[in-house]
């Protein structure tokens, strides 16, 4: 992964943007950003990953609402991890009005709640896999 080094206003151009995967499917929003200090100059921070999911959003929102969000999300995930789902910045293909990714959403950590919902509820209903007309 090369250090892309593009400088942009993360607040306006990155946060809360839609993630779109390689198939054109919606894969969540940029809920938070993981910042890592650069090797050479610790004052400089690189965005190394996009954080997505209720855990990440909760962190940003803070307060009781954020807490509630986080607890609900953690309870619904089968993984015991407490950290929010991470989308490494290397899979980001393009930044335009949305954030286009190189990979399909199934390969992302952020898809866990989606998979849980699919397995426990939706897949059990008749016609769930039928293509829309």
């Amino acid at each position, binding site marked *: 992964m090369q250090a892309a080094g593009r400088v942009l206003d993360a607040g306006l151009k990155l*946060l*809360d*943007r*839609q*993630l779109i995967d390689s198939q054109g*499917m*919606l*894969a*969540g*929003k940029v*809920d938070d950003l993981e910042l890592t200090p650069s090797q050479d100059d610790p004052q400089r921070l690189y965005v190394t990953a996009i954080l*997505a999911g*209720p855990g990440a*959003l909760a962190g*940003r*929102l803070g307060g009781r*609402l954020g807490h509630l969000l986080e607890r609900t999300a953690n309870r619904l995930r089968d993984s015991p991890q407490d950290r929010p789902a991470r989308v490494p910045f290397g899979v980001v293909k393009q930044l335009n*009005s*949305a954030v286009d990714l190189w990979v399909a*959403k199934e390969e992302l950590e952020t898809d866990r*709640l*989606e998979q849980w*919902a*699919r397995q426990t*509820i*939706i*897949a059990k*209903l008749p*016609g*769930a*896999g*039928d*293509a*829309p*007309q």
Partner: protein
Amino acid sequence: MKNLVQVALGVLTAIGGFVDIGDLVASTATGARFGLALAWVLAVGTIGIIIFAEMAGRVAAISGRPVFDLVRERLGAGMGLANLLASFFITLLTLAAEIGGVALAIELATSVNYLLWVPLVAIVIWVVVWRLPFETMDNTFGLVGLALVVFLLAIWRLHPDWHGLAHSALHPTVPQGEGHPTYWYFAIALLGSAMSPYEVFFFSSGAVEQRWTRQDLIINRTNVLIGFPLGALLALALMFTAAIVLQPQGVDPTHLSQTVLPVSLAFGKLGLALAIIGIFACTFGAALETCLSCGYTVAQYFGWQWGKFVKPTQAPRFHVVVLLSLLAGTLLVLTTIDPIQLTEYSIVLAAAALPLTYLPVLLVANDRDYMGDKANSGVSNLLASLYLVLLLVVSVATIPLLIVTKAGG
């Protein structure tokens, strides 16, 4: 570029789909208590929804994204969440009201208690949402909803005093026995029913469901500029018939059975059948719309895959929210709360939340990043901004008036 039949279909669907239980209750109650003195509010509300629906449709066609999807980007995650909570809650209330409305329509035809119909109605709603393709669903109930035109025809059949009606509409006065605060309370309720938030969510998301592109901008304009005013005409017809038959008799309608009396008088059994079918179709259609809108708002805030244009397995969280919302709405109706009263609360609270819904539409429609050359013109912005000022005033006045008039009692 879709052909003429499709355009006509879109317009007819827009007309038949305009009225929901909120419009039914608000227009009829207003007509019975105030005659046509509040007809101007319907005009104001219709123009408002035309302006903003056109914008929302344009946003969807150009950017491929519905408005609520972009709310979070524009307002930030915190404000966006507050917006989501308010919008979701009100849409859920409206969903419950619509379910109640469907059950009441069946009760009116069968005389079997509406509560017994509620679970069946909920199940059918879910099956339709789950199985029926979007356009089929939209068109079917929109077209059958056209049966409400019987109210329009009934006006002539009832031989009204045209001069008196025209005078009352063009020179609005508060009738004897009604107070000014009540007049304005009903004005707010009527506005809330005409500009209901879920209509924007559904129209905007629906445009994406139907894969509108630049070429469909004309369809967008036609549906909105022809379909909506004609749909509002049906709501106006409800007000008219109530003003002609119910007001002189001092009937204050609190049941659907009173709403349809004028049609019975005018056309007998055939007219009554059409009226009940029309009410059933428009409330059922609105139940589908509000149910999906509950899913749309939540999914679009969190960035989940949503929509009927993908397989359910590809949008599981969206469908879970839709299902849970339907369940919650159904349970709310089953608490035996009066569905008409529930409707009144839903439209009044909707009126209070109108700025929340419409401000983002204006913001996004002006964003050149998404809209390119199709961003708002100066004229659109001026009109829309004026409306936003109005909606803010309405929003602030709602709760005080609700308290002062004891919910219009």
